[in-house]
């Protein structure tokens, strides 16, 4: 089984968002980066599928040169090679991202049975990349997937809705966009990391379409410091807390 996984590098934001002076981006000078979470699950799913069905995994990413760091990390987990479509640091809109990824997947020498990715990215949250890629490639797409099984070229997908799960079936080749919770992604092993150093990360240059959605500014919404009431500690704190429970009507 040949699997393509689309992944995105995003800033690792902790307790606060710091913006650049022009308010056009997150100030990443003092923070690290990570893979957008749903895509960690997509890579893990791909690795598990290959373990059962054989085949190979190719990662595709649109982003800055630094995205190689996240690609190497996923190569260490079990992907075989990566293709990076470099942008000059600026983020491009969802429509353009999908167009570029679809073209990269389409023109690749490998015919992919499955394209996996996250349902939405952590930062832009556009909910459309997978669907647009599917249309561009002329394949069916299932989104929001939290359970995945593939037998005889047919994918059975589960999607959580409240306490129950909806089941969808789709014939490969297909595009499937997944969510956090599909699996627990493994950590790279030391031998995995050593192997990953030798795996290819190819640079691909694709003309990026003109944007249709243009950012004019970013802002951090003000959250009022609630001026929390300290209930004290120990037994006294526990007693005071139970009084609060009574007051707000949960007891």
């Amino acid at each position, binding site marked *: 089984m040949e699997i393509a996984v689309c992944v995105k590098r995003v800033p690792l934001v902790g307790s606060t968002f710091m913006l650049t002076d022009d308010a056009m981006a997150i100030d990443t000078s003092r923070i690290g980066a990570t893979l957008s979470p749903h895509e960690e699950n997509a890579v893990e799913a791909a690795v598990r599928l290959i373990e059962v069905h054989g085949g190979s995994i190719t990662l595709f990413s649109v982003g800055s040169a630094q995205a190689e760091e996240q690609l190497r990390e996923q190569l260490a987990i079990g992907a075989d090679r990566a293709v990076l479509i470099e942008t000059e640091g600026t983020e491009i809109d969802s429509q353009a991202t999908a167009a570029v990824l679809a073209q990269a997947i389409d023109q690749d020498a490998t015919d992919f049975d499955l394209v996996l990715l996250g349902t939405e990215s952590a930062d832009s949250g556009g909910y*459309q990349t997978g*669907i647009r890629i599917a249309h561009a490639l002329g394949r*069916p797409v299932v989104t929001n997937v939290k359970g995945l099984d593939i037998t005889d070229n047919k994918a059975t997908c589960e*999607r959580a809705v409240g306490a129950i799960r*909806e089941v969808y079936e789709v014939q490969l080749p297909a595009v499937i966009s997944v969510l956090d919770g599909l699996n627990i992604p493994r950590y790279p092993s030391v031998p995995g990391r050593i192997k990953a150093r030798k795996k290819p990360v190819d640079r691909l240059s694709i003309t990026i379409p003109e944007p249709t959605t243009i*950012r004019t500014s970013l802002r951090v919404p003000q959250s009022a410091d609630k001026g929390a009431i300290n209930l004290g500690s120990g037994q006294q704190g*526990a007693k005071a807390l139970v009084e609060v429970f009574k007051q707000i009507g949960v007891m």
Partner: protein
Amino acid sequence: MILVYADHDRGVIEPLTFQALTFARDIDPDVHAVLIGGSSAGLNASTAAAELGEYGAQVVHIAGLSDYSDYAPLAAARALVTLLGSTGAQALIAASSPRGNEVLAHVAAITDRPFVADCYSIAIGAPHKIVRARWAGNLHEEVDVDAEAADVLIATVFPHITEATTAPAAGAITEFTAAVSQDDLAVQVINRVGASTGGVTLPEAKVIVSGGRGMGGPDGFGILESIAAALGGTVGCTRVVTSAGWRPHSEQVGQTGTKVAPDLYLACGISGATQHLAGCKNSKTLVAINTDPDATIMNHADYIIVGDVNQVLPMVLQEIQDAKS
């Protein structure tokens, strides 16, 4: 005119749709709603249309697709594309629910238009001026959307920014037909599994007793279960906890988990990362128990106890039991 896609599950309209209708009325009072699927999909047309009319839908378009026995995103999108062509709507809006985002993204892909998800405000013009969520609402982004590319603006509304209010309108039913192929129905709900366990689910719980890394391990959650049970609530947790396999992902609160707004959110050994707060900051009362008085969660809480969960929580459980007896 603005067209609002009303997502329904076997006839039950997604409640966020009423917020989307209210939101759309603010842009243009001439709001139409659209429902996909006839009685074979469990839809009672007149009841559903009356509900949508209550929230301001002048007209309710219904595509009674014969093979549409259950939700099928691409088929729904094809029907919407047909309707956009015949009604001349200036915008297609839906709630930012999994289905709302999915169907509208399909429409955008089919018609090669932009799709703007999770909007806080929309001003239609040239360009369209939109404020939308990034990072699950932790950042607000102002964008200009090209009016030529988006000759029909396709967008979803961020949940709970508008309170659904009624504005009775005719809700007049008009049926339309759309050409939907078997391929468009290839992805469709074919089954539902995992009947509810009877317990309260996270989104509906009035009380959520939530634990983070500070609970120390899977065993630490026993006390949280006891407190949750005593208060008729349920257990939540952070991503650190689900990633370590201490608790199932269905209990994760946050950006990539469930977003909740209970009467009480009791955060135990949780630091308060932005991605966690994205899921719980709308709680009516937030209480944090943490050894670190400077933890971020302390600034977002209504009440705090500075202390070790291993000491404080057994006392809290004891006090609850004493108060009850």
